[in-house]
């Protein structure tokens, strides 16, 4: 693995720095916000409740706001998605590790609904997604997870020491 002879891209633009606690709180808020939206939207449809529907939209806005705060102008989106040539060898090694973990986690997350559906299909009392609205919520959850999980893992785990200044 060779180091890029050019100056790496992440250092070129000033990035917002978040503490470990802030980053972890934003990761929880992002995924928790979408999970809350799925639940509230399902309840809103079941009980025909406008208030629950609004609460679901608020949770979705919270999820988007957390994603923006976590990934916009912080190193993590770029780190998770930049071309290999703009990262140095350590950053590539860390990203490869996060991709490996994200892939395993995503495979497990994707497998859970499949296992559930295969069980629920023989049990009429268990809930199954039947409408376009229900299926699309699950599909969007998968799209959100696949797109953000590597960057979220980097943000969750990255611990640059305070002494790591440029001097």
């Amino acid at each position, binding site marked *: *693995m*060779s*180091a*890029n*002879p*050019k*100056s*790496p891209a*992440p*250092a070129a633009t000033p990035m917002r720095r978040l503490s470990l606690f802030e980053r972890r709180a934003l990761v929880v808020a992002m995924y928790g916000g979408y999970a809350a939206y799925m639940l509230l939207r399902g309840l809103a449809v079941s009980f025909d409740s406008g208030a629950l529907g609004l609460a679901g939209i608020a949770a979705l806005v919270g999820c988007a706001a957390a994603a923006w705060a976590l990934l916009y102008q912080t190193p993590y989106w770029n780190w998770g998605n930049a071309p290999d040539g703009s*990262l*140095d*060898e*350590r*950053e590539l*090694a860390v990203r490869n590790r996060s991709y490996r973990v994200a892939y395993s986690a995503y495979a497990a997350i994707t497998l859970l609904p499949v296992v559930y559906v295969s069980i629920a299909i023989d049990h009429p009392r268990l809930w199954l997604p039947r409408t376009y609205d229900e299926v699309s919520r699950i599909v969007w959850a998968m799209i959100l997870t696949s797109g953000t999980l590597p960057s979220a893992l980097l943000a969750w785990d990255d611990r*640059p*020491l305070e*002494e*790591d*200044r*440029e*001097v």
Partner: protein
Amino acid sequence: MIHNRISLLRAERGLSRKELADAVGVNFQTIGYLERGDYNPSLDLAFKISRYFNLPVEVIFSPEPFPSLSSQLRKIQEGEQK
């Protein structure tokens, strides 16, 4: 773990992490990780650093911990006295 003398050489030459990082093509935080021993460099990066400091690679990197500067100075002084 690979031990190194990067921080010593950097201090001796009055270099910032950013200057060294730019010279060898890595992020300045990677220099911090190297200095703390939290990351082992590739051969390519080790040779780039040794070329930059104009020193043999084994003077900068070692699988064994380096002796402290004070013990080395004492040894040199004792050698001169004999």
